[in-house]
């Protein structure tokens, strides 16, 4: 059984949800309060890193499989570029805030405001969170490969 003791596991199970929610809040309110896509994405990834540290790499990988994380990473990058291209198609130029200027001006200091900026924040948060999780998990896989005892144990599990 890999991972830490039952105390750490119990606390990590609760705290993980709070960290994840805090990351979602930072991403969604990026245009109103300090924070944004990059900071929120790092917090989202850190919730999964906590899971990995407490429960072991296998559990975190089952929770968010690497192919899924890789697809989320690509989806975030694609969403970011796609909204920018929509500015070119619908509005006047690349990266223009067409929602704010034409369709959905919203009200300042409200959640639905600032047009495309929250959408960009969501895309960046998705991208940064998934890619950081991917890199940390890849590094931990690489670290395990260099130890012969661990790899034998891994083959037993699979």
């Amino acid at each position, binding site marked *: 059984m890999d991972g830490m003791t039952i105390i750490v596991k119990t606390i990590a199970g609760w705290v993980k949800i709070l960290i994840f929610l805090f990351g979602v809040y930072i991403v969604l309110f990026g245009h109103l309060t300090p924070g944004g896509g990059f900071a929120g994405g790092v917090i989202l990834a850190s919730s999964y890193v906590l899971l990995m540290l407490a429960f072991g790499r296998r559990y975190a990988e089952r929770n968010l499989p690497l192919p899924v994380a890789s*697809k989320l990473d690509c989806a975030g*990058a694609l969403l970011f570029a796609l909204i920018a291209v929509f500015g070119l198609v619908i509005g006047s130029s690349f*990266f223009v805030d067409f929602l704010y200027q034409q369709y959905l001006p919203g009200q*300042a200091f409200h959640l639905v405001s600032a047009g495309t900026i929250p959408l960009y924040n969501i895309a960046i948060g998705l*991208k940064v969170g998934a890619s950081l999780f991917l*890199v940390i998990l*890849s590094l931990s896989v690489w670290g395990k490969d260099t130890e012969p005892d661990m790899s034998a144990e891994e083959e037993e599990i699979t």
Partner: protein
Amino acid sequence: MVIFYALALFMIIAAIIAVETSDLLSSVICVGAIGFGGSLMFLFLRAPDIAITQIVVEVLGLIILIRATISRDLTSISGDREFFGVVVSMAIIGVIFLAGMQVLNSLPGFGTPIFSLLPNAASQTYVGQGLELTGAPNLVSGVILDFRAYDTLGEAAVLFTSIIGATVILRTKSRKKAKAGGSDEWTA
């Protein structure tokens, strides 16, 4: 607008050469040329920060990495040419030092508000009319995702490329093991 088409043509030609050539070092230098064209493009789009990032990552990082990892194709200089090389290097360092001193002298003093020196600077608009123009009370978000969105696009592209590179490099070891041990393929 012509300069962008010229740069795009240059990058496409470099990409074709990089794919078609048989020499590894030439191929890597062509990839560096693509990155150089991209950084020039960012510079003409007035995103100097991302141009610097691009040139550091793409040109310098790539070439230094290849020079460090490939032991062949290394040429050592000796004799008169070594003396010439040392003189040229010292001259270049001196020129860069003098130019750097000029730049540092022209900077405003510590704590001086730069707005008072540049009344028509772009940052004046960002601070003064940011909320009006973007609708975002968080000015940092308004700047990086509206006024300077090209910088953010470049940063996202650099991050995406480096993540792809990291996962590919780290994957080869695991794939070798998977082939030998017959365990599952976890990569996408």
